């Protein structure tokens, strides 16, 4: 389904939309308060952008360097061209180690590859251990936000979900109690796990190590308890040097939630004695996105979610209406590169206000890329009849000033005179769920001419 259709489903519950909107704006506000206290914040963003751009322009070299160093550290490196190969590699590692119970910390890549259903089909238990991800896993839903996976659920829904699946007592949605119960439930899963899967926030070419950031400590609980640790990363997670973490760790959490840094920034390099560590490096369309000069900067993304929290469309339509692993503005420039037809409505789910680009910690020109995707999509995918026709008519009207003036007069008269039922009739998409303004008596052109005449008189 297209974004407008899914968004209209989300919009049926107006109170929930308002609540969702406010919850995300609150996070955006926390981000503002935090970054305004950082001396040289704009310079930090420039550095983030510059380091990522440099990395992409040398990506093959840095990937080779990373692989060589990781091997030296005793880590096994695997390469997956697509989602299917990624799932097969992870599956094989688990089988080789006779792993039946797996704990997973947050990884948008494994969501993108639909790893869980692949493993579950073979009877392997996969437990998402980030609290928000566990909530959506129990609800059998995908995450609706990359940092706040269950932001679309209120505490009463979580309360009911936990009563059903974890046997908790009714608690009127007490977050403290619910989190405590989740801790107990997941602690057991950590203790029993045969293997741990984590994502990767940054992989350092210079050392062959990688960094995983969490607030809950779930990545570390999984990785240090289970005998096998599998870390999955997209090719673009590479940074050249360890000192570059100084830039990215200053940017990431502040942009995401307004915290000065995540609670745990764990630097994994070598497995501890008798344990195994694997890294799976995944392409899955990234090298193709790299070939598109207009869109390759989307690969700078460090997955902070700031563009979602600030986006007026995301806040009012919810993450699920994007029907993509990565929702929101950044997802809307990544997804069309993977499947233009399926995701053709996403670049239009924007007001092009540019707020996403303003908050992006690595200065991706998100709104400019949304605009560019629109140009491609209108040419390459079939457009609705009314939109196509009205664009043609508008084009011819705008091309002739005399005609434009006449049509303007009729339109202004119509807005003043015709009944609402006619003005907001079905073909007028702009009259949907909003009232159009009363038509003014004179056009801007008339007003300007009058003003010029009056100027002459006053002199």
């Amino acid at each position, binding site marked *: 389904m297209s974004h407008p259709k899914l968004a209209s489903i989300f919009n049926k519950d107006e109170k929930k939309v308002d609540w969702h909107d406010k919850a995300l704006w609150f996070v955006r506000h926390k981000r503002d308060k935090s970054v305004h206290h950082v001396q040289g914040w704009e310079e930090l963003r420039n550095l983030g952008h*510059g380091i990522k751009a440099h990395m992409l*322009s040398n990506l093959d070299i840095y990937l080779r360097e990373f692989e060589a160093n990781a091997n030296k550290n005793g880590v096994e490196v695997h390469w997956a061209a697509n989602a299917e190969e990624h799932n097969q590699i992870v599956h094989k590692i688990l089988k080789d180690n006779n792993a039946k119970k797996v704990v997973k910390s947050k990884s948008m890549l494994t969501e993108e590859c639909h790893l869980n259903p692949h493993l579950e089909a073979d009877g392997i238990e996969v437990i998402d251990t980030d609290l928000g991800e566990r909530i959506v896993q129990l609800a059998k839903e995908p995450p609706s936000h990359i940092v706040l996976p269950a932001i679309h659920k209120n505490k009463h829904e979580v309360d009911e979900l936990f009563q059903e699946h974890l046997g908790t007592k009714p608690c009127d*949605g007490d977050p*403290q109690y619910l989190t405590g119960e989740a801790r107990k439930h997941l602690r057991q899963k950590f203790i029993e796990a045969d293997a741990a899967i984590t994502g990767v926030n940054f992989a350092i070419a210079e050392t062959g190590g990688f960094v995983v950031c969490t607030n809950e*400590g779930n990545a570390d609980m999984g990785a240090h308890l289970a005998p096998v640790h599998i870390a999955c990363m997209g090719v673009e997670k590479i940074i050249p040097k360890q*000192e570059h973490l100084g830039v990215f760790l200053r940017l990431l959490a502040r942009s995401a939630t307004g915290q000065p840094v995540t609670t745990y920034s764990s630097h*994994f*390099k070598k497995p501890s004695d008798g344990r195994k560590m694997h890294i799976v490096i995944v392409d899955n369309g990234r*090298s193709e996105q790299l070939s598109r*000069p207009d869109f390759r900067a989307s690969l700078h993304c460090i997955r902070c979610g700031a563009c979602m929290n600030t986006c007026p469309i995301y806040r009012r339509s919810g993450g699920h209406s994007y029907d993509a692993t990565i929702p929101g503005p950044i997802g809307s420039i990544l997804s069309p590169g993977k499947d233009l037809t399926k995701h053709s409505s996403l670049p239009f789910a924007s007001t092009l206000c540019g707020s996403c680009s303003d908050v992006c910690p690595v200065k991706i020109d998100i709104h400019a890329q949304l605009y560019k995707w629109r140009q491609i999509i209108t040419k390459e995918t079939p457009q609705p009849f009314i939109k196509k026709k009205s664009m043609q008519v508008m084009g011819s009207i705008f091309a002739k000033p005399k005609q434009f003036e006449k049509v303007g007069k009729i339109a202004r008269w119509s807005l003043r005179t015709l009944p609402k039922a006619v003005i907001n009739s079905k073909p007028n998409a702009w009259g949907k769920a909003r009232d159009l303004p009363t038509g003014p008596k004179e056009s801007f052109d008339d007003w300007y001419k009058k003003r010029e005449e009056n100027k002459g008189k006053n002199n």
Partner: protein
Amino acid sequence: MSSRDKILSRIEANKPDALALPNIDLSLFDEGLDLVQEFTKKAEVVGANVIDMVSNDVVAKVENLFPDAKIKYSAIENTSAFNTIDLANIEKPQDLEDLDILILESELAVAENGSVWVTDKQLPMRVLPFITKHLVIVTSKDNIVPYMHQAYHKINAGNANDFGVFIAGPSKTADIEQSLVIGAHGALSLTLLLK
């Protein structure tokens, strides 16, 4: 061709012309922080309890702060009397599940975000600071650097670590309706003792 070679050759073909790596000019960020004051402020923001030590008796302080702790372990020197467990008898990290309190030392702290750096060198087992109920970390005021940039300079200048972690406050989550709850999967509390 293997997937590895396919991916690398596609990237090589598709990447843009080489762009220079930007230099990091640290003077742009410098605001002349009072390191101890800023560190204390930020550590409290991220939920840690910061205590300025008047005496050097860490164990006495911790016994006093956590009188009910039963299973205790300290990884700092000359504190073995504090320990109720012997790591030599711990067969697997899962056996540490009931640990009430852990004392560690850190040689690096960051003023701008209230975090402390802990590595394999201070950690006999990696899971320790995550699995313990309460975590106490001792550090000297001389170890505080202003920003993450200086922290990495110090890390790069020292011996290489196989595992290291910046810890900023106790574990936490706000995944239920954005309400902050302290104590997710890791430690329920973090106490920082500043010497």
